[in-house]
């Protein structure tokens, strides 16, 4: 079965990376070696599809029997590399391989003018895709953490791809440092788990009651899970560590597409979904996840309202949508926790499944939106929406595909975003009904979610109308992008349009994902699958659906009347209270400012002290040691006379000393 060869999926792109970085320049054929990377990522894509077919047929590789090899061992301690494939992995494989491949193909057109540096670009992209595959296939947290860090490294390299631009260099550093804060939390969480449970293998950590069974207090268990989620806060740009993502726009747009849709930020969502069997043992951590998710969704959406950089709008929308995913995962987990104590219920996996569902749909429409934005930027040479406008006429494919993406993210049926966003909100509402002590929190979170839905529709169409309609505001001669760019756009647009139908095709996405939870959470909670058509009926009879639909429609219409009809001039809001509000949003709630102030004053102060200590105490000691070593080396060296007589004499003297030592210290043994 193909699933047994799944380990090859990350190997292909990494081979591509090695080829591009090691072979002589003349072997790179064309476009800085792009054909190798396209071939390798396509191979991974085909293999991923074959593996997914196996998973659809009910084959998984989980538990202690999953294939693994010992990587290194020291005494009784062992590090293994293994493969873990379940339904969740299958979804991730689809997303990463498909979006990754399309991004690489698109790059051929987009990066055409880059010259010599293309080689570095393709090498890094290939590594990025390869290590992301490694991350989703890992079967223990050590392996996952290694790939997790490599993903961080690759994003650093790619965000700072145009290293000659100071803004790109600093954005790359910022992404690296901010996510590092999350990584340290993740590592601390893992260390706690290792300390108590004694292993970081999924198969043991995901056993039922693994945390309590290890003698961890419930507070410690919650702490470890919140720290684990800390990794996701950094990687998936959740509040309050979300500020690196908008800055990460400094990289090439293809890189943004990859980071936002398939690789970097999805790793955090994957981490939370992967840790579900542990998270459901700690309800408080789940509530924390949901709250952070809700706050992030709302805050990022408000920031997107005023952004004028087309990529920044998309970046904030990504943060906001990631917040939705976290919200759904938290809410769904809490429902499961409640029911683990109170007995069975149907539709248990809804929160979990809707989070993953939204992640998958988001991958398609966000990749689409970014690549379309890239196409626009490629055409007009600026990111500033105020300088765009009227591009719909010259860039038909781009404008239509972007429209599909916008409709999808705004949650307009029948596009994909509608299905998953509706389910996210519905499971938040269910949590309000079921979550016991947290129910008021979830009511607030639900209201925040609905408000976010309104803003999403508004800012997305604000962007679309500002870009594609009205008068052209710059003198650039915009033209449609080359085929290698428009074809990926069209493929992604059709996916963004229809991927939501996975909800009710066949067994339905939710019952597919339910298998993943019921196999990992254990048999005591029977996750019953609902018939997809039944849930389809539920969607269209529930007032919740209409509520979220109406707010989206209102958001869209508001954007239409302001930015298309011009019924209301935005400039009137530029003063007074609304002006202040606008400034607050434009300054991103001063979060960045706060970090900078914090970093400059407090951290810098600490560093200054550390520097003095380092310079005088540590360096002094080191220099002293170096001086001593070098002097004593010189002294010993002088005994090396070159005279063979002296050498033999040294042997004799040394031998006598040795014998003396043996006699003095070992003689007494008899």
């Amino acid at each position, binding site marked *: 079965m193909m699933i047994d060869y799944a380990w090859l999926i990350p190997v292909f792109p990494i081979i591509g990376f090695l080829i591009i970085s090691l072979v002589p320049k003349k072997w790179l054929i064309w476009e800085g070696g792009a054909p190798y990377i396209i071939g390798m990522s396509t191979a991974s894509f085909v293999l991923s599809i074959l593996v997914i077919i196996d998973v659809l047929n009910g084959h998984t590789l989980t538990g202690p029997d999953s294939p693994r090899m010992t990587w290194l061992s020291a005494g009784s301690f062992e590090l293994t590399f293994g493969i873990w494939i379940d339904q969740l992995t299958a979804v991730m494989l689809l997303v990463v391989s498909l979006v990754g491949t399309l991004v690489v193909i698109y790059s051929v057109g987009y990066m055409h003018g880059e010259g010599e540096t293309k080689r570095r670009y393709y090498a890094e992209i290939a590594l990025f895709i390869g290590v992301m595959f490694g991350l989703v296939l890992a079967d223990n947290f050590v392996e996952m953490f290694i790939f997790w860090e490599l993903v961080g490294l690759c994003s650093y390299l790619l965000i700072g791809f145009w290293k000659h631009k100071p803004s790109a260099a600093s954005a790359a550093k910022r992404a690296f440092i901010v996510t590092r804060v999350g990584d340290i939390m993740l590592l601390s969480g893992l260390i706690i788990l290792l300390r108590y449970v004694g292993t970081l293998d999924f198969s043991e950590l995901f056993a039922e009651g693994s945390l309590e069974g290890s003698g961890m207090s419930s507070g410690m268990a919650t702490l470890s899970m919140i720290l684990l989620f800390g990794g996701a806060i950094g990687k998936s740009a959740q509040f309050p560590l979300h500020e690196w993502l908008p800055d990460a726009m400094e990289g090439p747009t293809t890189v943004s597409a990859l980071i936002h849709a398939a690789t970097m930020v999805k790793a955090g969502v994957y981490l939370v979904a992967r840790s579900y069997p542990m998270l459901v043992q700690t309800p408080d951590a789940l509530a924390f996840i949901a709250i952070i998710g809700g706050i992030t969704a709302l805050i990022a959406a408000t920031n997107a309202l005023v952004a004028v950089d087309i990529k920044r709008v998309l970046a904030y929308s990504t943060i906001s949508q990631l917040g939705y995913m976290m919200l759904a995962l938290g809410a769904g987990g809490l429902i499961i926790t409640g029911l683990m104590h109170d007995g069975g219920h149907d539709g248990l996996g809804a929160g979990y499944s809707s989070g993953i569902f939204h992640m998958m749909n988001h991958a398609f429409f966000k990749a689409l939106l970014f690549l379309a934005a890239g196409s626009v930027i490629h055409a007009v040479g600026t990111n500033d929406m105020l300088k765009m406008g009227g591009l719909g006429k010259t860039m038909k494919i781009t404008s239509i595909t972007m429209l599909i993406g916008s409709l999808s993210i705004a949650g307009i049926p029948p596009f994909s975003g509608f299905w998953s966003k509706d389910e996210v909100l519905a499971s938040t509402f269910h949590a309000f009904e079921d979550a016991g002590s947290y129910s008021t929190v979830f009511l607030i979170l639900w209201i925040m979610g609905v408000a976010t839905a309104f803003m999403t529709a508004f800012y997305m169409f604000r962007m679309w109308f500002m870009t594609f309609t009205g008068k052209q505001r710059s003198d650039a001669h915009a033209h449609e992008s080359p085929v290698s760019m428009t074809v990926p756009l069209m493929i992604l647009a059709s996916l963004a349009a229809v991927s939501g139908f996975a909800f009710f095709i066949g067994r339905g996405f939710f019952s597919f994902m339910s298998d993943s939870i019921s196999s990992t959470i254990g048999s005591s909670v029977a996750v019953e699958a609902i018939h997809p058509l039944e849930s389809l009926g539920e969607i269209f009879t529930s007032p919740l659906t209409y509520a979220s639909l109406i707010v989206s429609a209102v958001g869209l219409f508001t954007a239409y009347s302001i930015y298309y009809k011009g019924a209301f001039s935005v400039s009137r809001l530029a003063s007074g209270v609304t002006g202040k509000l606008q400034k607050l949003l434009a300054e991103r709630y001063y979060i960045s400012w706060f970090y900078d102030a914090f970093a400059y004053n407090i951290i810098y102060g600490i560093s200054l002290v550390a520097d003095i200590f380092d310079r005088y105490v540590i360096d002094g000691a080191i220099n002293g040691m170096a001086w001593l070593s070098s002097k004593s080396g010189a002294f010993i060296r002088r005994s090396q006379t070159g005279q*063979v007589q002296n050498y*033999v004499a040294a042997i004799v003297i040394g031998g006598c000393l040795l014998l003396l030592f043996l006699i003095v210290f*070992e003689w007494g043994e*008899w």
Partner: protein
Amino acid sequence: MAETATAAEYFGVLMPQILLLIFALLCPALDLWLKMRRGIAYWVIIGLTIVGVMEILALIPETQNLVPFLFWEQPPETSIFAVNAFSMVFTVVFVFVGALVAFVSPDYIKRERNHGEYYALLLIAVTGMSFVATAGDLIVIFLGLEIAGISSYALTGFQKSVKRSTEAAMKYFIVGGFSSAISLFGMSLLYGAGGTTNLTELGAMGAEYGPIVLLGIAMLIIGLGFKIAAVPFHMWAPDVYEGAPTSITALLAAASKKMGIAALFKIFIVALLAYKAQWDLAIGIIAILTMTVGNLVAIQQNSVKRMLAYSSIAQAGYILIALPVWAVYDPSSPELVRISEYAVAGGILHVITHAAMKSGAFFVILALTVRGFGENLKDFDGLSKRAPFLALAMAIFVLSLAGIPPLAGFYSKFVLFSAAIFGSSEPGGASWLVWLAIAGILNSALSLFYYARIIKSMYIHNPQSQDRIKVPPLIQAAIVIAMIVTVFIGLYPEPFLEGALEAARALNGLLPIG
């Protein structure tokens, strides 16, 4: 039982050594009759590869039955050979280094005469080394040491027209002869005490022969300490390594020294089992002295070749850690037995990794010599611009020697030091062993100082000219192989550690039972 051992059975288990000798004896013929030059090197490589493949097949359980003759039953009590995983692993190392030396030699010695003798001596040296690894008896160990030793003296002086080379050979010969005599004396004292030269039977002797064996221990430490260049018996090494043709320097550092380690392991672990409480501290102190002196003096060197010679001394110090840690061995405690095996496995793993990284580093110097460069640090200035591949390879080798992950040297040092820590913390172990780990770690930090100087020269300093340096393909191939091994062991050490553990278990298997 002894009567049933037929000649064929001995021939079977000695097939690798016999093959090596056949290949060696034909080398002069190829030179004299067929007037081959480069061809002899290929011939040597073929012979060594056959033997290497044979031993590797024998090491892998799935393919063992492809070389059944290596496993022919031998009468245990009269056996003077012990063919097992230990001998196989060491033979693979010797053969590997020998083959790499054969790769680099044709371009390096092309101005010299008598190629046939050079390659024959090379093969005979490798044969002697593998005899030491295969020995089950003091006599065989001594013969192996002498076969390899005498061939190396001749090889060191191979460049007869170069004064430095002949001087080195002379020094090597004098100090070597002196040390051989001492170690032979030591062996005869063991024979006097135990009444046998068989290692296993010597191991069964009790602790009652104190004084005489103590003298024997001292003499064996001197004699074998010379072979591995342990302080204070090391002084010949820098002169000889620097004076010898660089290809032979690689052989001495990467293979000949490992032969000394094999002999040391065999004699001290198996034959001196009853006296392990007497030799452990002495060897521990020598280990610390060796690594410290080697590193300290290396810092002072301006000749990279000499610097690497001192670094070899230091590396032998790390390997010596294995012996005192092994001494926690106690058959009644499975955990202590495991630690003892782990320690020896660490030593063997370091033998393997050091063979790759040190020979690779010497080959880089050799490649530069072939192109008319000197061996001083300033000859490496700006190498990254003139020969990016050589610079990268050298950087990998020296970083691995310094023990930087994820390179091979990191992992083998890690096993050695962690073994010392395990040995000190386990109940029934010896708490002073932790000092070996501390000394090793501090020395690793110290060694980075001079390794980094090489990298700094290559990558930061400006080259004296911009011309590219072209490396002959065979030398390049040898460097690439050494580099692949260095990187691969670092990335995926598990099978190598497994092999080393297997060898360590085989060594423990020679111990007298009960």
